């Protein structure tokens, strides 16, 4: 027998998914040259940690141990907000006017369940209705012409965001993924009292020299393609795929590791590590797109934010509002958009309040970047938010 190859394990369930690489024939003539990349940050990214509102007069007091001290180590944005140093790789895009943030974003829902909130973030709805397609697929329906697959899921299975009646492509890297440290540390707790699996897991981790990283306070910083580093190769691949003249135009990516209940940190820590992987991925995406970067908008959203105050384990718990990132050569950036509700009055005395429905940002991008008209946006893409005005001026028209 041949020795086991991990590559073979790829592509579990082939039904309708392109498994490795892309058949060129899938793409015919392009109806648009505009590119849209949607990044789902799963696990609830802490907006207050990523883009700290250093200018808010109650910031230091409310955040406590997780507050950045003054401007120390943060990168300047508009004087009120600053950039977590983990995001250094994209700071130059802010300066070039190709990056903006919308703080205090949320959706019409209030739930602190990851699963429900991610479903809603992806379906684009405010209520659980068992919706089985995503807003991006419904948006795709408005720009789709002919058989060419304009949409692509990069990284693995097609997320709900991109599922629906319009057929999409998918791509995943040819490698069997080692266990994510985040997953292992969750599993370690389940195995803690198991006389058989507990010691075996501990020994296995020791053998892989992983245990320090996984169990240590600093979180994991593994080799390439691991933990926070797993995003970069995917983002780079997405850039190359989108850059192809006959390639897809709309890509969905995802990145986990944001559920920083423990050891979140400020200048260093789990959040900064994850942000670094995220930012380096975005940079790789931009570079891989080459000249097509001019035609590109990247939008990153997360299912909800995190508590304003630090919890008992140097982290934060599930909260309400977070932040939306919009970046790209086609973006009118270099500024903050939307309102800031302040840290004076909090949602349920613990969370940042929502000032902007994230869907108004998405609507603005779909309208101004992809040219989807308002009626279609209201009726089909975001059917339960017809009154929500698109945020204008995000994109160079």
């Amino acid at each position, binding site marked *: *027998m041949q020795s*086991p*190859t*991990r590559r*073979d*394990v*790829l*592509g*579990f*369930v*082939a*039904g*309708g*998914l392109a498994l490795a690489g892309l058949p060129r024939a899938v793409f015919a003539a392009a109806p648009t040259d505009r590119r849209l990349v949607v990044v789902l940050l*799963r*696990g*609830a990214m802490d907006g207050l940690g990523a883009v700290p509102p250093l200018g808010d007069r109650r910031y230091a007091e409310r955040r406590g141990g997780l507050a950045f001290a003054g401007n120390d180590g943060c990168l300047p944005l508009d004087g009120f907000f600053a950039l977590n140093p983990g995001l250094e790789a994209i700071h130059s895009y802010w300066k070039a006017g190709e990056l903006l943030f919308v703080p205090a974003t949320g959706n019409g829902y209030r739930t602190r*369940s*990851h*699963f429900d909130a*991610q*479903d809603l973030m992806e379906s684009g709805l405010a209520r659980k209705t068992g919706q089985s397609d995503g807003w991006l697929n419904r948006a795709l329906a408005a720009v789709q012409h002919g058989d060419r697959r304009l949409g692509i899921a990069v990284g*693995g*299975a*097609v997320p709900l965001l991109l599922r629906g009646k319009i057929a999409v492509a998918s791509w*995943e890297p040819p490698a*069997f*993924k*080692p*266990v*994510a440290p*985040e*997953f*292992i540390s*969750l*599993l370690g*707790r*389940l*195995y803690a009292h*198991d006389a*058989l*699996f507990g010691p*075996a*897991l*501990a*020994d*296995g*981790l*020791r*053998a*892989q020299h992983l245990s320090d990283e996984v169990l240590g306070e600093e979180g994991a910083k593994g080799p390439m393609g691991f933990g926070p580093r797993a995003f970069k190769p995917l983002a780079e691949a997405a850039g190359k795929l989108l850059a192809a003249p006959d390639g897809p135009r709309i890509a969905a990516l995802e990145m*986990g*590791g*944001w*559920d920083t209940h423990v050891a979140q940190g400020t200048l260093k820590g789990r959040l900064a590590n994850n942000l670094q992987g995220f930012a380096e991925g975005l940079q790789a995406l931009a570079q891989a797109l080459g000249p097509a970067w001019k035609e590109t908008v990247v939008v990153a959203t997360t299912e909800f934010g995190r508590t304003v105050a630090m919890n008992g384990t140097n982290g934060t718990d599930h909260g309400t509002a977070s932040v939306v990132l919009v970046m790209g050569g086609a973006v009118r950036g270099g500024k903050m958009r939307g309102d800031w509700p302040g840290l004076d009055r909090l949602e349920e005395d613990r969370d940042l309040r929502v000032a902007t429905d994230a869907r108004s940002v998405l609507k603005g991008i779909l309208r101004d970047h992809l040219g989807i008209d308002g009626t279609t946006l209201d009726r089909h893409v975001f059917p339960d938010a017809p009154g929500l005005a698109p945020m204008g001026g995000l994109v160079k028209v």
Partner: protein
Amino acid sequence: MTDAAALIAATRFGFAAEGGDLAAIGRDPRRWALAQLHRRPASLPGDLPPSSRVVAQLLEARRERKEKTGDPKAAKDEMRDLYIAEVGARLNAAIASDAPLLERLVFFWSNHFTVSALRPAVRGFVGAFEREAIRPHVTGRFADMLLAVTRHPAMCFYLDNVVSIGPNSPFGRRKDKGLNENLGRELLELHTLGVDGGYTQQDVEALARILTGWTIARLRDPNPGTFRFAPGIHEPGPKVLLGKTYPEAGVEEGEAALRDLARHPATARHIATKLARHFIADAPPQPAIERIAKVFRDSDGDLREVTAAVINDPEAWRQPFAKVRTPTELVIAAFRASGVREVPALPLVASLRTLDQPAFVAPSPAGWPDVASAWVSPESVLRRAEWCQTFAERLPNPPDPVAMAEASYGELLPAETLEAIRRAPSRRVGLALLLASPEFQRR
């Protein structure tokens, strides 16, 4: 019965509740299991070729090799494709079965009568072996299965009976060739009496002599690739096995000997022990073994009654999570519980390889081990975690892991496991946690 009984029925006498829902088991889990014994095992897709055709093809390829015609690589590729198709068919049958107990029995008996593709030559028809010699007999008589297995070209080849020549047979005398005891020994040690079953080296040799001539029809014979008794290599004269004399009777000699071995009390005990270890616990209680062995003896090895005895044994229902799932069981259970009903063959083949239990490639004629210590090691636990994570990431439509945990475990899932799944940062991570949990890793 309680939740525990439904869970035990679903996982111990099946793979996992379909769609992760224990409600499918109904109110009487024991009856749910017993009722399946009156059904016939599913037959696998009809386009899988019979072993006779595959073996004939191999014989053809061998001739071409000798004559330096034909394309050896094409023949090899064809065997690989057959192997993949067989593995896919076998696993999908288990994943989608509505009589999962019968599929569990197919795996059990196929492992008991191991033919391993570690001998690459059998790779193309090891699946056919299972379909032809094991599957039809899992609720039939043990003696019939034993005969079907021993006559099968795969076993004749795997345990070298095709090269075992009676030293005093016409051919043996002419060519000065002799016995190969391999099949005789494994029949006694593994398939029937068991290593402590009270046989001697003389018995091994006697059985080997009795079975000389059990071989595979050649290209020039009628029905090439099927079982053939070749009188020209059969050792003539009476043989004494376990104190009983078998007069010279050609192929019937072996048939009589196998029927006697199937009926032997040591065989009853050996089989009862293995069944109890497989379905009850790594170290099964002696009284349960005694009870199952008695049914085996009293019913003359009627496997429907013997299996019913396992199901009816109180020990089988005492403790959920008593056994660690083998990688094969884990893979089948994961797909089944997630509501997937059809999986392409290649990822199944690859999954089992990655988890170190490649299909039809047991390490020895003794088959895969059936105790936790063989399956849980530092490396294997990481691989299992890796696999569960990858599975959850790639499943196109992941089920809600909290609902699945509640439907498939009810109160039996420790609160901390359920809480960890509930708090997982995404649905896919939650599903991976459920599959990797100590509870899902067991049955």
